């Protein structure tokens, strides 16, 4: 199997989106698209599976809520009950309105932070990681589509040029994918 791929470079997100649809319609395999900002509808056009991060977020929220219930109960009821504002803390249920802000904040805190961390891990991003994008200008103002080649190099290059790419070049991937 060859390690050759084609890099088609675009300078407009609308043109890119149409190109992605054309390439998909012509049954070519898009390996990856690099963009400087999120392009609305690109995931659908590329046929990526829908994200499951919402489910993860819900579960993180439930975890946060459980931790907060344990935390408030342990601190305020079991370990060191205090009489605050004439409301002695001997019963969790009777004091729960006072804890609701904490329950709410902890739910949000867990859902938000764990969701970001999950997203980074799932995208294989961590500190000091070497950038994977093949061309630094995709973080500035260019869009790059990586298309796999299977014995149709010439045809594919002309096809991609017709989709509005400002530059099409063949790229040899070395070893790592």
């Amino acid at each position, binding site marked *: 199997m060859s390690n050759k791929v084609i890099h088609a470079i675009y300078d407009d997100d609308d043109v890119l989106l149409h190109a992605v649809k054309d390439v998909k319609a012509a049954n070519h395999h898009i390996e990856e698209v690099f963009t400087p900002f999120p392009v609305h509808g690109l995931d659908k056009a590329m046929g990526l599976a829908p994200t499951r991060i919402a489910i993860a977020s819900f579960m993180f929220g439930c975890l946060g809520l459980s931790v907060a219930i344990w935390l408030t109960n342990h601190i305020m009821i079991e370990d060191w009950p205090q009489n605050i504002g004439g409301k002695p803390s001997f019963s969790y249920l009777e004091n729960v*309105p*006072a804890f609701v802000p904490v329950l709410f904040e902890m739910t949000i805190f867990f859902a938000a932070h764990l969701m970001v961390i999950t997203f980074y891990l799932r995208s294989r991003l961590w500190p000091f990681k070497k950038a994977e994008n093949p061309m630094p200008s995709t973080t500035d103002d260019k869009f790059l589509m990586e298309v796999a080649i299977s014995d149709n190099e010439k045809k594919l290059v002309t096809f991609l040029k017709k989709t509005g790419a400002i530059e099409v070049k063949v790229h040899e991937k070395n070893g790592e994918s």
Partner: protein
Amino acid sequence: MYTFSKNLKFLSLSFMVVGALALGIGFLSAPSNVEEAKAMVADAHGGHDSHAVTTHDSHAADHKEDTHHDNHNASHDTHADTHDETHAEGHDSSHDEHLLHQLQNKPWAAVYVAALFFMMIALGTLAFYAIQRAAQAGWSILLFRVMEGITAYLLPGTIIVFVLLVLSGLHLNHIFVWMDADVVAHDEIIQNKQSYLNVPFFLARALFYITGWNLYRYYSRKFSLAQDGENGVSYHKKNFRLAAGFLVFYIVTESMMSWDWIMSVDPHWFSTLFGWYVFASMIVTAVTVIAMITIYLKSRGYLEDVNDSHIHDLGKFMFGFSVFWTYLWFSQFMLIWYSNIPEEVTYFITRIEDYNFLFFGMVVMNFVFPLLILMNSDYKRNNWFIIIAGIVIVLGHYIDVYNMIMPATVGDQWSFGLSEIGSVLLFAGLFIYVVFSALTKVPLKPKGDPLVKESEHFVY
């Protein structure tokens, strides 16, 4: 053009007839003197098991601490120091008269709750519509005619509420205790509020709010229809400016409306975020009703350009405003619960003791249920989920309005009897009749709107 289907018309008319009959019976069966009232309560308790009788007895014994009597039985708290001596003799007869007033209030309060609830659906829709206009939103253009149809109920709805307020002002009922001169004479707190809470000023304010809202509704509808016949954007701009002005007027008058028409039934009690709380309730009901009527019209083959994304957006608003309502409900509750100041906390004590199931049940209906069912993005695009969540939200917010009015007007004598169900049916029938008649008047697509193309192609 939409045609009002025969079945729906029949449904709305039969709702009105059955509702009016039930309500009439409710009024006729209200007691006219103390003996009848006592007999009714005795009958109701005779059927209960021994447990109910015991709780009733202990309740009567605790009567001195029974805070919801504060409002009506004015001597109860202003003469707190001489309480024990004077109260003992006057206790039985004043309690019986209080009971009579509560039972006489019941059909009136039931009508008032239903009238307010349906009026607030139209008012909330008008506010939502004005927000779309002022924001020049592109997605919602195709729903404008539906919203305008719902706001057609504003005029009859506000007139009915106004008539009920006038009848209260004429002392035909005891919904607003501060209108009763005998009560005020013994109540220093209400005396101090007399410059604001007096019948002529109260009715003048009501007239002012109602006129303002209906003027906006009239002109926005007029410009909206005029836009269909023109190519330019002059009416669009006019509607934009009008909506921005109306929103300022609305948020002030809505807040004052909630103090006047709802909070003043408990004239000792006040909450500074009450206007927002009522607003949250009315806007979530309004968005829900917009979504349900849109889905109904779509299921009948109208509104063919409205797609899943429009429903999805309405679903997001239903979800978001439900959470917003809960936030305000809880903020109000927690501050009062924590500070535990007697004149404030009576409000919640009455509700938790006498309305426990309704008071907490509505939080489940208005928060937990929509939160869980509408959280998933795909469910918000599914008509069935929107309708199911919508029915629960609408019922939940009816209970919310019920909980605002009933504890102060009928106390622990509440029930869902003929007058409650009858008045809901009566106003539901009227609401359906007025709204769907208004929908038949003009084409359902505002084709002259400069943003209508954006709405047609709206995809999330």
